Structures are given as structure tokens and as C-alpha cells.
């Protein structure tokens, strides 16, 4: 069975600093996709960044970037220049199943402090 593990239930960071959220996964698929989703307090879940396993280059979206280590099955999220609006639950997910349903980790609650 596919699994996604987030080992940090909670993290905090000072505004303007950099933080890295960890994620490891296990999949038997030859090609697969990995995602980081953000869920701000009482707000909708939105996609932060995504990575296709075949692509060697790490994905980047503005202040968000990933460190994708395929051999180690690791997919960490780095947030640079943290802002108060980054305070949220962050979920790592992999695409599994024949119909594209996602397998989610248990989430990391990130607090950005002023």
C-alpha cells in the first residue's frame, strides 16, 4: 500500500526566516506525482507545489521550493522568507490508485511568528 509520512506534527518559524517541512513516501508506481497542499485556518485547501517523479529538477513556486530525493523517497518543502500568511496546515500527498486519488500524510501545522 502507498504511504506518505510527515514526521513533524508541528513547527514554528520566525517571520522572514526559512523553514523546511519533511515528507517521505512509498509507492510502487514507476511514474508518480507528489504534491504539497496548504490549508490555512478555517480556509480552503489549496495546492502549493507539485513534482513529477520523472523530472530531475526540483519544482519551485516563488518562495516555495521542494527538495526531491527520488532514491530516498523524500519530498521536503522549503519556505523562504516566511510570512504570517504562511501559517497553515501543510499536507504532503502522492498520487495513487488507478483513478488518481491522493494519499495524504497526517499534516504539519506551521506557525509563523512575528
Amino acid at each position, binding site marked *: 500500500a502507498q504511504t506518505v509520512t510527515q514526521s513533524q506534527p508541528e513547527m514554528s518559524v520566525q517571520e522572514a526566516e526559512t523553514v523546511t517541512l519533511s515528507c517521505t513516501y512509498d509507492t510502487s508506481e514507476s511514474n508518480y506525482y507528489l504534491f504539497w497542499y496548504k490549508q490555512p485556518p478555517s480556509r*480552503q*485547501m489549496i495546492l502549493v507545489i507539485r513534482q513529477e517523479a520523472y523530472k530531475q529538477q526540483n519544482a519551485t513556486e516563488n518562495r516555495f521550493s521542494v527538495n526531491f530525493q527520488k532514491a530516498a523517497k523524500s519530498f521536503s518543502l522549503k519556505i523562504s522568507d516566511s510570512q504570517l500568511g504562511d501559517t497553515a496546515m501543510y499536507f504532503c500527498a502522492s498520487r495513487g490508485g488507478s483513478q*488518481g*486519488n491522493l494519499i*495524504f500524510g497526517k499534516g504539519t501545522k506551521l506557525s509563523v511568528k512575528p
Partner: protein
Amino acid sequence: DVKVTQSSRYLVKRTGEKVFLECVQDMDHENMFWYRQDPGLGLRLIYFSYDVKMKEKGDIPEGYSVSREKKERFSLILESASTNQTSMYLCASNRPRTGYNEQFFGPGTRLTVL
């Protein structure tokens, strides 16, 4: 702008009641999903549907059923609500297994069963 809507943000029901949670998407997506979100457990898949009138059980289908009579609408039904079904329920949709297969989420329904 893509949109997934859920019928209620907050819902309070009594034990034994029949509960309907509605989800509508306007992106003409084939796939729709119902997740349950609990602290420390992440998101767990209840049911998903890959076409009208088609459904597949997810990881925790017990106590739930679903209905998809139209492509844009996916309903989650609690036949006889119980207190252990108090949770946040998230609906999502995406296209079938093509490309990134990103899922788009609704705002969630926080259900309390008394």
C-alpha cells in the same frame, strides 16, 4: 476560476439522523472524492466516483454511502449519524489520470453529531 462548493460550512445533527452532504463542481471533472479530516489523522478517503452513477470505496467507507446522479454533483450520505462521525468533511474533484491530476477542494463541512 475553478470552483468546488459544499452545501454547508457547519452542520449540527442528532444521533440517528440521516445526513446529506452535498458537493458541486463547475470544472466538468470526471472524478469526485469525499475525504474525512481529523486532527492527527490527516485526510482519509471515504468514497470516490469516476463517473456518473459510479462509485468506489475508499479507506473508511463504513457508515457512509454516496450518490452521483449528475456529473457536477456528488453527495455523501450518513444513513444513521453517530457521534464518531463528528468531523470535517472535504470534497474534491479532478480529471482522470492525466498529467498532474491535481485535486481541487471545497471549503469543507464541519459536522457535529450530538
